């Protein structure tokens, strides 16, 4: 065999085309990284272990869900708080009127308080029947049902319950038993059990379980209804008994005021908790987003430098391809 010093033409062609193919492939990858800001090969970027990236992405998706939950729960708690404030304000005003009116003889003294009681009772029942985005706020899980019948209907039911009672004590007993009777107030209540807590953040739930069956609300309604009943002719012609009933109701309302305040505090602290959770979720969202960019993000400076380098190399390769293909003995002989 003749010893050779030549190098086959095909070798040079293969070398040049392989190099230009490789460079082009790298340019495509680098420009993709530069324009998207993300690693072109995510599997390689995370070393084949997606658990961290998947966890971050899953948490971000959950945080979006929590965002919807906190916004809704915040509005819901706000509406609840407003309704409780309506009841509490009305009750406080009425207690004042009863205290002012007592001691004065005749029906003139209690008159304004009784009228006010009718109004306050009606607005309290209205507040408990508040519907927010088609949900009865105080109905618990039966949110499509109306919480309570109208104030007039309740008073009518109470009227028949107290019919025949001749003393303040008898009337009070009859009212008390109507409110505690499963066939009385509990039957008039259209709602269901308390709502389940709403998820606000990982492992954190908010309590929005207040319903019209809350003892503080029942006690307040009882006091208001008692005074309001006087306006419907209960114990008519017995000013002393009427006064005794009104004063008893005023005292009961004062006592119930503590419970009502406690309820408002409970809802208020839930509101604070929701706001805090919202802030924390937002902070976690941005922290996770930054973390995510750290995992998936390609360094744009790195990519730009690489692209510049690749451009220079590809240009050099073109130049060499052109020169080398002209370098043939055939051109000179």
């Amino acid at each position, binding site marked *: 065999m003749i010893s050779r010093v030549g190098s*086959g033409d095909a070798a040079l062609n293969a070398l040049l085309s392989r190099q230009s193919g490789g460079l082009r492939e790298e340019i495509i990858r680098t420009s993709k990284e530069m324009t998207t800001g993300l690693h072109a090969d995510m599997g390689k970027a995370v070393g084949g272990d997606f658990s961290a990236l998947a966890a971050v992405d899953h948490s971000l998706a959950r945080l979006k869900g929590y965002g*919807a939950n906190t916004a809704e729960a915040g509005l819901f708690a706000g509406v609840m708080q407003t309704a409780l404030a309506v009841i509490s304000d009305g009750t406080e005003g009425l207690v004042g009127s009863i205290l002012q009116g007592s001691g004065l003889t005749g029906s003139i003294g209690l008159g304004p308080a009784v009228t006010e009681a009718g109004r306050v009772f009606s607005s309290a029942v209205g507040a408990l029947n508040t519907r927010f985005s088609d949900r009865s706020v105080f109905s618990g*899980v039966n949110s499509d049902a109306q919480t309570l019948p109208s104030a007039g209907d309740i008073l009518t039911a109470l009227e028949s319950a107290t019919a025949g009672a001749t003393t303040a004590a008898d009337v009070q007993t009859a009212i008390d038993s109507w409110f505690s009777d499963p066939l009385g107030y509990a039957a008039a209540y259209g709602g269901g059990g308390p709502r389940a807590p*709403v998820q606000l953040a990982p492992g954190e739930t908010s309590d929005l379980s207040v319903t019209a069956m809350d003892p503080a609300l029942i006690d307040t309604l009882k006091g208001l209804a008692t005074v309001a009943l006087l306006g419907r002719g209960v114990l008519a012609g017995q000013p002393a008994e009427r006064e005794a009933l009104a004063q008893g109701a005023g005292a009961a309302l004062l006592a119930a005021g503590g419970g009502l305040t406690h309820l408002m505090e409970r809802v208020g602290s839930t509101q604070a908790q929701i706001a805090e959770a919202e802030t924390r979720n937002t902070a976690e969202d941005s922290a996770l987003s930054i973390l995510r960019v750290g995992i998936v993000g390609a360094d744009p400076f790195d990519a730009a430098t690489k692209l510049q380098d690749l451009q220079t190399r590809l240009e050099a390769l073109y130049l060499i391809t052109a020169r080398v293909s002209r370098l043939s003995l055939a051109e000179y002989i």
Partner: protein
Amino acid sequence: MSISSALSSALTGLKATSRQAEVVASNVANASTPGYGRRGVSLSASVLGGTGQGVMVRGVTRQIDQFLINDRRGAQASAGERDTRASFLRQMEGIVGQPSDPASLSARVAALDRALMEAASRPESGARLTTAVDAARQLAFGLNGASNAIQDARARADGAIGKAVGDLNSALSQVQVLNTQIRSSTGAGQDISALLDQRQQIVDRISGLVPLREVARDNNQIALMTTGGAVLLDGQASQFGFTAVNTVVPEMTLASGGLSGLTLNGRPMATSGEASLLRGGQLAGLFAVRDDLAVTGQARLDGMARDMVERFSALGLDLTVAPGDLGLFTDAGAAFDPLDEVGLSARIAVNAMVDPQAGGAAFRLRDGLGAVSPGATGNSALLVALTDALSTARPTVSSVFPAANRSLAGLTADLLSASSSERLNAETEEAFTSARFVALDEMEKAGGVDTDQELQSLLVIEKAYAANAKVLKTVDDMLNTLLGL
């Protein structure tokens, strides 16, 4: 007689140089023909009666490096195998999908989690319940689609095996025919270089499919065997047997007899493992995809589907469901049988009771799968329990995953990580084998035709031809001088 011998010497020189020019022309013309071995003319001094009588063309030699070719063929086979494996694993990673891709399994799990959580925040909303059911259905569809894609890849591999086996058989019989031609041409003393080129081209074509060893036999014959030792051609060509199928489903495996194995001259041969005589080649790669890699991928999807079914039908999760009844996800509408895990991901579906598209009602997601009529609209207890069930870390039952407690999202991430790291390993091996192949291929090509060198020798030939012609003319003149006396 020395003048006339000078004349005949010059004539042999002219003949030899024109033969050389002919070979140079053939070399230049075939400068880019694959498998073309550069020709050279071997010359020697002709001796007649003990004295030199011009030049003699001993023959045309085909200059190849058989060791290099064998090495390159070996590298080509391993590159073929690694490339087949890596491209399937790349596809597999894409099928599972990266979390940022909304169509990925991870994103679908996250969407279900979020939809359940939002529904729990407002159980009254029919729209949110429907969204949650949609998300569950999308997750089931995602698994169905992933399973189908894997089975499609298996079917493609099966078809490619069928084609490769056909190529092998036809190439082997062609080599057998060429062997016969070469034997008779060698006997007749003809130039067999073109036939050798053709035979090398055919062998090169199948050397990516199976790792070949070419063994030289007398009279320029070759025998072909795999590096594992299976005889493909030795005088008589062997015949491979394989039957491709049209559709592949998860239950069809080589072991179950649903898919065809490979036979050599009617005898079954192992297609995987250390004992396989075909080890390391594109054919072995295709068998690995069909019978191993894709089956593992399918088993992982089935494991995830099983976890989903069991997770959402746990006892005490939904009080309206009696033990043994269907949970949120079903095995094509029926209860899941742990002995029937294979192919579950292709069959998993959302319970028709909650799916409005299947005649169910979304309120059952809130009130219980066994609920007859809608219950309390604000009741979020079951929705909260379902959200919890999705995130609870429970032991993964399927043995294809390493034993650990995982949430559904964690299991999906592990599924992706397993596919991704396998792909990266396969790509590293692919890069290594293809670099080796490219290096050897370039070395082989460097031994091919160099047109500069050919042109250079053409110049020498031209000069030699002119010199010989000059000798001829001078001798002629001398003879004329004698005749003119």
